[in-house]
């Protein structure tokens, strides 16, 4: 007898969607998420294109759906260690990494006030710091604190444990392993921003005013490191000009071979962020092709009209820094003008693309991957499906569509397994 339950690996927008859609059909679902919170990458996005609406809005609804649905079980700080068995009957071991904060946590925040240690805030891509015991972000679901073991001074400090009135801190928490038996698996571990350090000609990592598109999202976000103000990282001052460099890693045989699909629209959206804060700033987008497919074309048209941006057809070749002013020079061949142009900017944003998480960490099962490491769905092991950006570089709406479709595939596996 096959198991009708479904394991979803990855609790980002794709994983959440796949899990919720399957659970709302009536299936028992387990979500395994490596972060201490659900929501994945979209929690770090300020606004979605083309509506410029906040992702937390949709997440809030999805979390409501989880709260109300007893068929959904989720594990944060968890990772799948092994998979055995076959479609309809998979045995999965899941490692639960220690949070050092137990279910007693009420989210009151006293521990953070007491904590003496700091850590770089990964949620804001290192643009600011949190205490070693921290709430991942204010919309975090579940709303429980977590301790970063690398930053924590350990039991001999123990200040957090002393102030906690609810006995919620357990500095000796050990990893645990649990076993699940499921009928189908949806792998929705998403993507990582491509490592911009590898694009040395753009100076990321050497020039602080060169940032990536995901950092731009944090900077523009009210709950980000600058409280939503877009500024020059070197001095926190207002900007007068900004360049967006498209295909920073994508469409590139040396980096990500595929097009990441979303970066053009993301940069157009970022242009609206900048324009809202700086009515007179110069905004330049360096591109090869502007890929605003389907009805997103309307957004492209609208941004061109309203945000007064300059589009330069020509991939930016290099970024140089003027060491005295920290201004950046972007050099590119403007192909319409047929000339090499050098322009100065206060801020350069690299539109880094999507590297599938499976480029670095494979599924512990027989699976196939394409040349960039994107997971091929159901190729070798029936019953294990890829959903969302681990399969194709997708925008959010498409990832949700894909995840919804994948929920059905997973359900089919549990039906097939029964026959």
């Amino acid at each position: 007898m096959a198991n009708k339950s479904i394991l979803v690996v990855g609790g980002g927008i794709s994983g959440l969607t796949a899990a919720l859609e399957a659970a709302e059909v009536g299936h028992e679902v387990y979500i395994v998420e490596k972060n201490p919170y659900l929501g994945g990458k979209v929690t770090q996005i300020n606004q979605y294109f083309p509506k410029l609406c906040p992702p937390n809005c949709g997440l809030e609804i999805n979390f409501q759906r989880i709260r109300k649905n007893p068929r959904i079980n989720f594990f944060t700080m968890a990772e799948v260690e092994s998979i055995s068995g076959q479609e309809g009957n998979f045995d999965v071991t899941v490692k639960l990494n220690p949070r050092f904060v137990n279910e007693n946590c009420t989210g009151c925040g006293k521990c953070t006030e007491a904590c003496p240690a700091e850590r770089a805030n990964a949620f804001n891509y290192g643009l600011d710091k949190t205490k070693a015991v921290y709430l991942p972000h204010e919309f975090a679901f579940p709303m429980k604190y977590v301790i970063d073991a690398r930053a924590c001074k350990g039991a001999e400090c123990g200040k957090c444990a002393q102030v906690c009135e609810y006995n919620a801190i357990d500095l000796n928490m050990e990893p645990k392993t649990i076993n699940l038996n499921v009928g189908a698996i949806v792998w929705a571990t998403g993507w990582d921003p491509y490592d911009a350090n590898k694009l040395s000609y753009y100076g990321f990592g050497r020039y602080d005013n060169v940032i990536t598109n995901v950092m731009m999202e944090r900077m523009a976000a009210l709950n980000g490191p600058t409280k939503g103000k877009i500024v020059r990282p070197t001095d926190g001052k207002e900007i007068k000009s900004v360049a967006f460099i498209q295909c920073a890693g994508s469409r590139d045989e040396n980096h990500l071979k595929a097009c990441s699909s979303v970066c053009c629209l993301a940069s157009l959206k970022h242009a609206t962020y900048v324009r809202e804060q700086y009515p007179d700033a110069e905004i330049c987008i360096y591109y090869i092709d502007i890929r605003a497919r389907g009805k997103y074309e309307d957004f492209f048209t609208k941004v061109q009209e309203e945000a007064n941006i300059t589009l330069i057809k020509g991939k930016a070749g290099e970024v140089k820094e003027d060491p005295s002013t920290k201004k950046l020079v972007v050099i590119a061949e403007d192909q319409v003008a047929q000339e090499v142009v050098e322009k100065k900017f206060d801020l350069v944003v690299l539109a880094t693309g999507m590297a599938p998480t499976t480029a670095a960490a494979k599924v512990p099962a027989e699976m196939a991957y394409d040349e960039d490491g994107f997971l091929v769905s159901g190729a070798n092991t029936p019953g294990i499906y890829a959903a969302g950006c681990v399969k194709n570089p997708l925008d959010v709406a498409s990832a949700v569509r894909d995840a919804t479709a994948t929920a059905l595939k997973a359900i089919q596996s549990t039906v097939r397994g029964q026959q």
Partner: protein
Amino acid sequence: MEKKIAVYICTGCGIGDALDVDALSNVALKEYKADICKTDAFLCGKDGVAVIKNDIENEGVNTVVVAGCSSRVNADVFNFGPNVIVERANLREQVIWCHPADDEDTQMLAEDYIRMALVKQKNMNLPEPYQVENLSKTIMVVGGGFTGLTAALESAKAGYRTVLVEKEDKLGGYVGKMYKQVPLKPPFTDLEENCIPGLVKAVEEAGVKVYTSATIAKTAGGPGMFDVTINQNGGTVEERVGAIVLATGARPYDASKLAHLGFGQYENVITQSAFEEMVAAGNMEAGKVAFIQCAGSRDQEHLPYCSAACCVESIKQALYVKEKNPEANVYVYYKDIRSNGQYEHFYKKAQQAGVIFIKGDVTAITESDGQLAIEADDKTMGTTSEADEFDLVVLANGMVPTAAFGEMIEEEAEEEAAAAADEPKVVGPTIIKSNMLNLEYRQGPELPELKYGFPDSHYICFPYETRRTGIYAAGVVRAPMDMLSAMEDAAGAALKAVQCVEATAKGEAVHPRSGDMSFPEFNMNRCTQCKRCTEECPFGAINEDEKANPLPNPTRCRRCGTCMGACPERIISFKNYSVPMIGNMVKAIEVPEELDEKPRILVFACENDAMPALDMAGINRLQYNPWVRIIPVRCLGSLNLVWINDAMAKGFDGVLLMGCKHGDDYQCHFMKGSELAEIRLSKISETLNRLGLESERVRATTVNIMDYDKIPAMLDEFAEELEELGPNPMKDFQ
């Protein structure tokens, strides 16, 4: 149900330090005669929960008020099963975290929230699900092209009886006529054989009931009970189905409108589909071919949108030419090559095959001796360029959804409109009579369009959100997309259809209030046939009889309460959400006398965006005016004007509605809720003025979830303005 009410006040997270808990208990026990009231220092802890459970099991408690943190947290902890009503009074996020401790105003606020929670409980009942007789779990797919076949196959594979209706005599649609298809799998470089024959076979083997040469004459009923009349071969067939996938596809843009590209003028300027058929028939002999992208698309004069599929389709067709004759000269004129995602590999493949890509606007197409010449503004060459001796020029002429063809529904009868001319009115969505579903819906026979005729979802997070419950559009009828997307879309829509029939069977709502078992009930005795409910329902759930009586279809309903808010006679209510329930909550709030100089502001906040934003203000410890009392509503669309009356009569100095953004980029999860509320409000301003109440006392604002930083100013400024107006003159009349 005889209610046995217990109130549990949590004193943890600083609540006990900031508030006089004994006084709170007194409100519960003395004022409201709650059966039990207990306090606990750590209510969400094991021991705290055990206390509640013990009272439920041993004391017969069936109605619980948890006064502590927000309902956004610990929902699982305070869930005591389907037979226990649980209500939360938010003393943490919305009281002590945003107001000073040990303060008279803060205490009054907390006490009011206890009162409101108790009143709310007294006025609510456990919902009983709406059950349908002769329920069908059959999935009907309309359209037998690539998307429709895929959707049908996917739902059949999930174990559901599936019916497929196709208007042509043959399945396959647009893709069926193709020579080959674009790659749908890694490495995304190779042309694939046409999948339609295999798909048709699989659909037949999966037991899908197929109707070809068939159209839908009528679709009546609602989810779980759609009664569909199918016209086929002069006769009719009836099918009862549970949910519907609309996959009627798109049509190529009318090339006769592309005379500027030589179509109609030169025989050898043809469309993408004509080329496809030519190659499929083996009649393509051309040695020199040009493809012109965006022929119609991305053009404000024609199709302002990008048709999404044409770039990869033209790359494919260019490869046909190269496959047949590697020496052939093939040119593609483009604005931007949109080979998104892994289709980048496909683009490169075509380049490697020797296809020449020219970024340029075609400025002229001419013909001499049967051969065509193209002049273009060649962008990367920095000059005007020419190429000639083309045997064929293929126009990538984009797509128009089948849902866009037909007459638009006219607005309501003229006289009615005239009569109500001075009343602002919400403009309903556009519905085009495209003759596909012929829904027996009061609001029109097809899915409402979003834009350009595509009946798409407006939500990024919820692409299958539909304004006609149980009917999901998929493929290129929904939005411009390529085959890979359409394939996924078909399965996604099939899932939603399956989900809808399952939820309907249980009497549950589907998204966004999935799982909600409540539904609106109508006290028809008092109905005045005003049609507000039938007009305003965002989901077309309510039909009308000839006498304009509303005929609710609960399985279409999404439980937003818009009908309840619209009804001037207040005849519509849910078991756990009603006009009196909220009205009594308003009345339960203590409004101090004028001399006390403690004004009161009532806030109706949308529970989807405004309530979380208010919580966030608390989490960030943002301090705001303690005069406000916040009542969450399902949607501002459910706002009934009588509540404003109640508030004014009670002596509130002002009322603020916090709803979602409306307009083109609306955020309301029920489409028009906040907009409707504002319109309703505008209708009473005159009345208010007449009563000597300044209409500025009642206003609406939009709040999104990330506006929490603006909330203190929003409330404080409103309070200041109210102070300038002075106290509500009705205050001491009560």
